[in-house]
């Protein structure tokens, strides 16, 4: 993990500070015990956060026979990538992958553009009924008509079982608009004014001044938006009931998981005999590895992107604390 210059400086100062006040910070036995416990607890918790992903991963790259015998618990055995190659044969997975990828790209791009533009518009005091327009958007964060009226609304608009339901409702995101608006307000107004004096239009000012200057906040909302699109499950579940070709990746994964979970229900209620169960479980083992692999496929993009985007995530939650 790369330290920023500021962090290095902080650490240096902290060290110098402790040196200077050595007596005041004498380490007591109580401190040592506390430190040991503290480090242990955090280490254990961090392991519980990492290990499940690791476990899933080693099971997907190991020899399937070893996996079904339950021998892959801590390290991979017989490394190969056959499981990933076999994903080509899994029904509908390709579709789900395309749907999710395209909605992530298109949906995020449109959301960012719209948030930036609307965020800019609502900072303009001279806009006709500006505060009314702004409130019209913001109020929508605090109420929700509910799941069924929302569903009937989509049916009425003809968006049910339609790919566009993934894109259009997400374009206007009030929360992101607030974030962008707050950010734009912190940009010195003189920049815009000088451009207006030179005869620039609102669109030009937005393109040439506001858009480049607000890139940090736009990157933040873009990343949050992209993660949201990638993880989307509920809209697919509710609006795609009759269009199985358009399910998102997470929904597809859910369908696979349900299939094995149903088997578990049968086993625990005792409605199948033990020998039948054994056959079924053996068949299931293959499915199980497939599930692991599909899960891995859908989580890898996030795990890969995450370390690079970490600072944006943190910035995002801090911005959230600022109210519009």
């Amino acid at each position, binding site marked *: 993990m790369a330290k920023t210059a500021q962090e290095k400086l902080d650490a240096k100062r902290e060290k110098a500070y402790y040196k200077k006040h050595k007596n005041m910070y004498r380490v007591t036995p109580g401190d040592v015990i506390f430190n040991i416990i503290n480090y242990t607890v955090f280490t254990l918790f961090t392991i519980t956060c990492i290990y499940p992903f690791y476990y899933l991963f080693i099971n997907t790259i190991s020899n399937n026979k070893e996996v079904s015998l339950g021998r892959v618990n801590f390290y991979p055995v017989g490394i190969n990538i056959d499981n990933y190659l076999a994903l080509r044969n899994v029904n509908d997975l390709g579709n789900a992958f395309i749907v999710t990828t395209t909605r992530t790209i298109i949906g995020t791009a449109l959301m960012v553009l719209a948030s930036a533009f609307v965020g800019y518009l609502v900072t303009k005091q001279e806009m006709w009924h500006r505060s009314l327009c702004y409130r019209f958007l913001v109020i929508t964060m605090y109420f929700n008509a509910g799941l069924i009226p929302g569903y*009937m609304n989509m049916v009425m608009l003809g968006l049910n079982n339609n790919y566009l339901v993934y894109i259009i409702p997400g374009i206007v995101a009030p929360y992101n608009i607030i974030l962008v608006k707050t950010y734009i307000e912190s940009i010195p107004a003189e920049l815009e004014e000088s451009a207006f004096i030179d005869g620039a239009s609102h669109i030009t000012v937005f393109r040439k001044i506001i858009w480049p200057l607000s890139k940090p906040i736009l990157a933040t909302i873009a990343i949050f938006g992209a993660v949201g699109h990638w993880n989307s*499950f509920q809209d697919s579940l509710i609006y795609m009931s009759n269009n199985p070709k358009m399910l998102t990746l997470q929904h597809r994964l859910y369908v696979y998981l349900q299939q*094995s979970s149903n088997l578990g229900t049968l086993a625990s209620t005792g409605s199948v005999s033990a020998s039948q169960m054994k056959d079924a479980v053996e068949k299931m083992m293959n499915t199980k590895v497939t599930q692991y692999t599909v899960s891995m496929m859908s989580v890898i993009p996030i795990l890969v992107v995450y370390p690079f985007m970490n600072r944006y995530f943190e910035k995002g939650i801090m911005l959230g604390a600022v109210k519009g």
Partner: protein
Amino acid sequence: MKGSVEKGAGDYMLYVTRLLTGVLAILAFIPSFNPVRASKLVSDQVALFTSAVSYSSLTKESEFQLRSGIVDSTMFILINVAAIVLIIGILGMVAGACLSLGNINLKRLSLIISAIGGVVGAVGCVLVFVAKGHAAGLANGAGEANLPKSLLFYMISIIIILLISVICFFIMPGFDADEGFYMESTYKLFLMFLPFGVLAFLFCYLPLWGWRYAFFDYEVGGTIGMKNFVGFKWFGYLFKTKATRNDVFQTIINTLAMSSLGLIFSWLPMAFAIFLCEIKNLTFRRFVQTFTTVPNFISWVLVYALALSLFDTTGFINQLKVYMGIIKDASEEGTNYLMSTRFIWFKMWAWGTWKGIGWSAIIYIAGISGIDQQLYEAATVDGAGRFQKMWHVTLPGLLPTFFVLLLMSIAAILSNGLDQYLVFENARNANKLSVLDLYVYHLGLGSNGSIPLSTVVGMFKSIISVILLFGANSASKALRGESII
């Protein structure tokens, strides 16, 4: 630069044009107001806009009639053309209405454009009659001719717009060659905002219109009309039959129990942050912080996939048992921990905490770095130990943030979300996991669902949530003098 400052009768008439044009433009997206449905062979799920852009959706429900030759494609082509013409007319009227916000020259231009749009729209309406005539002329009534009521509304609106355009053209001041075309930036900005306002209206405000289903005896695919209006029947129905009553009570208990668990332990992220900041090794601290936030960014489906891989019959825990010799064969003797209902509320809370604690702690970590270092120095000089500093300096510094977040979670006490409970639900634990959001989902979209009943429950939830939010807000205002929304 400005046109006439005084408002004349023409300006007031233009308000009517703008309003009517806006209504027509929105109705173009609503299937139940499709004015070109000249035949019942066209699905009632198709809106005017869809009829114009997609010929295939017009004929979707009557492919059989088309193929067998009962109906010829002429009727559908006529409807399609009528829709295209009508949409072009509406586009013209919308452009006119937008331009009418400009100066006098733009206004005169807008009147011409509106009038052209109106004429085109009227032609579209006439084409609908032609299509209807064609449908009626087909043998044995196979065309199922239909004259949609909304067509009347469209015709009246278009005639009014045409009349106003013509009248205004004569009563308004003439073209001013010196002025050029100009619109004040206040209206320009508003027009740029308008498309986004419309989107917000369509997806956030229009669903409220769906609350009407609570008062009707509605079934999927049916219609709503005075004949199936049932008043408050469904509100009483919730508590009338024993089965529903038990379901509702169990759901409310589950919801409140799991929300309360969350509230009781809402200090955990704060404790997490305080203890994490006691770690002086910055590398280790960043490491912990980075990896404990990862689970927040994976979906609940993936959490469930992880849970399956760990706690299933053949999952990690059972394999570990085999490894240590406690059981012999995982697939035969293994325990499926996800099936058990013991401590299920607590387990759900634990999953939620595992997923969210690292993330929720970030705001407190930032809060701690915002606390004045001099306070710690002063405390040290006064002889305060490590725990005393944590208790008397760090904690009070974080409490305001904690209270805001606590109030927010009290306001959200009924909204546990749908995803988590849906993915963890199975035949054994369904009863204990049914929270309001999940109950509404199953009740409305389940196999033998009831749209009205589900709408009633959802309505109650929405209204109570808004009341709670404003209650929390006024509590915050009274206690801290700060608003949280």
